[in-house]
């Protein structure tokens, strides 16, 4: 497995498109963890202008342990498309350069080839989760008023859930990439599916009362694993934990796309 990861890293490290997309993603993660507080402070100053004393948005414990874990993972997962693009690029390029064929001729089996991409997806997910964990730790330590070890790590399992969400999504993007093989079209399909198809299907079906729709749309399933945490700051009840049916749906999609992606590559002539 280390051999496959090493091969994959050698392929992408010098690639400019990969570097640009990956650094954009890291910067975006960083921004979430840094920008919200100044924004709240800006809101506060505006409220003061309007002479609305008594409303102080900065007391919202967005960055405080343990709330921070659910908050930042819920926001961060919405950036997953950026990372998905870098992976789509790396897999569709293999088809357009025909390097997948040469890799197989050189002595990689078709299965090893696609597993090297999946290992890379796992590596990217873990690296992002680790990065987010470090950012969360730092911001949490800065903004939390009374720090205790128990509070710090309470709910930090959201980071692991984040890694799972990201990994499932990346395996889904690999599937799209392998299926379509053309980078621009694959990216277009991914955007269209994620932003348009799923949203329309979801909106329509929930309107009609079919709430199970969230379980059969892959990207929605991934997103709904962590629920929106913010309404709790206006005293509404939110689900601040993970449920087994929702986790099961994500794991099922992961297994499905893992199997389908490998099968697509192994069965096809190169």
């Amino acid at each position, binding site marked *: 497995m280390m051999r496959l990861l090493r091969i994959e890293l050698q392929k992408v490290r010098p690639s400019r498109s990969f570097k640009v997309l990956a650094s954009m993603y890291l910067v975006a993660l960083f921004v979430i963890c840094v920008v919200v507080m100044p924004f709240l402070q800006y809101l506060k100053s505006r409220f003061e202008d309007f002479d609305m004393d008594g409303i102080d948005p900065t007391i919202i414990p967005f960055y405080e342990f343990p709330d921070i874990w659910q908050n930042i993972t819920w926001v961060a997962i919405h950036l997953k498309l950026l990372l998905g693009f870098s992976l789509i690029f790396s897999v569709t390029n293999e088809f357009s*350069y025909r390097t997948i064929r040469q890799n197989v001729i050189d002595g990689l089996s078709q299965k090893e080839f696609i597993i090297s991409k999946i290992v890379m997806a796992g590596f990217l997910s873990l690296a992002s989760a680790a990065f987010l964990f470090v950012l969360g730790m730092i911001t949490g330590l800065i903004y939390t008023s009374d720090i205790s070890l128990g509070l710090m790590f309470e709910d930090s399992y959201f980071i692991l859930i984040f890694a799972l969400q990201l990994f499932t999504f990346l395996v889904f993007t690999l599937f799209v990439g392998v299926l379509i093989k053309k980078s621009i079209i694959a990216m277009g399909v991914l955007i269209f599916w994620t932003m348009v198809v799923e949203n329309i299907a979801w909106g329509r079906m929930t309107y009609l009362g079919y709430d199970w729709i969230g379980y059969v749309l892959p990207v929605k399933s991934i997103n709904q694993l962590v629920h929106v945490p913010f309404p709790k700051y206006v005293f509404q009840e939110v689900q601040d934990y993970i449920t087994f049916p929702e986790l099961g749906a994500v794991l099922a999609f992961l297994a499905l796309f893992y199997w389908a992606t490998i099968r697509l590559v192994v069965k096809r002539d190169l």
Partner: protein
Amino acid sequence: MDTVLSIKNLSKHYGRVKAVDDLSLEVQRGNVFGILGPNGSGKTTTLGTILNVINQTSGTFEWFGQKGDQNTRKRIGAILEHPIFYPYLTGVQNLKIVCDIKEVPYSRVEEVLKVVSLDERKDSKFKTYSLGMKQRLSIASALLCDPEVMILDEPTNGLDPQGIAEIRDLIIEIANSGKTIILASHLLDEVQKVCTHFCVLQRGKLIHTGLVEDVGKGSLNVEVKADVENLQAVLEGSGMASHIKRELDKYTMTMHNGYSAAQVNEYLFKQGITAKHLVVKTKTLEKQFLEILAGQEGGQS
């Protein structure tokens, strides 16, 4: 002698098109084996199948006496069609990936780049290479694992005459080091210069296999010119030729066994004729190839 590659009844059909049709073939260790055939005769499909990038419709093949898989492929250096590398990576970076795939140490990279004399440009991106350099890089890549067999598919395709000569010398050098080489080409001259064995494919079928040195053996051809009206009759009267063909003022005799050009000369002299042109023609592979193809087509119709 041990068998490196053995193909049994291999077929690949694309719908109704039979790209490879019931092909059986054996390549022994140390052979330089040429696969000849017109474009579209199934050469690349055959090579793609024995390298597991194309799934065969039926039939089997064995490398080194075992079923071909990724581990046998690590012992083979192969290039199919044009050189394929990551364009945004340098020569060295590309070869390091191949090292990791074939599980050989990175130290081989410098060695093979020297063999193909590409070390000066090793740190330039692949996309900046000329076609000749790309071909040389792919030969370097095929040499990385010190392969027991090299497979080259049209290695001089698209090169200028100087590039062709360079690559050809390189192949002969590699062949002299004792490696088994399988070379697919539609350039007969190339196969004749480089190979020891050859086979001919047509529409996916194997229609001939033999030794390159046997080409030109068998019946001898002698060309005769002389300023005599009835030369054809005189030559026929000699009884030495099984067949005489006329091209303008030149007569080509296909000789019976045991007769040579010297006897023709002696015979003509006795008849009071001096030949002004008397040449022994050895058959080229090209001629043999065309004969084989023509024979095949004649046989089918």
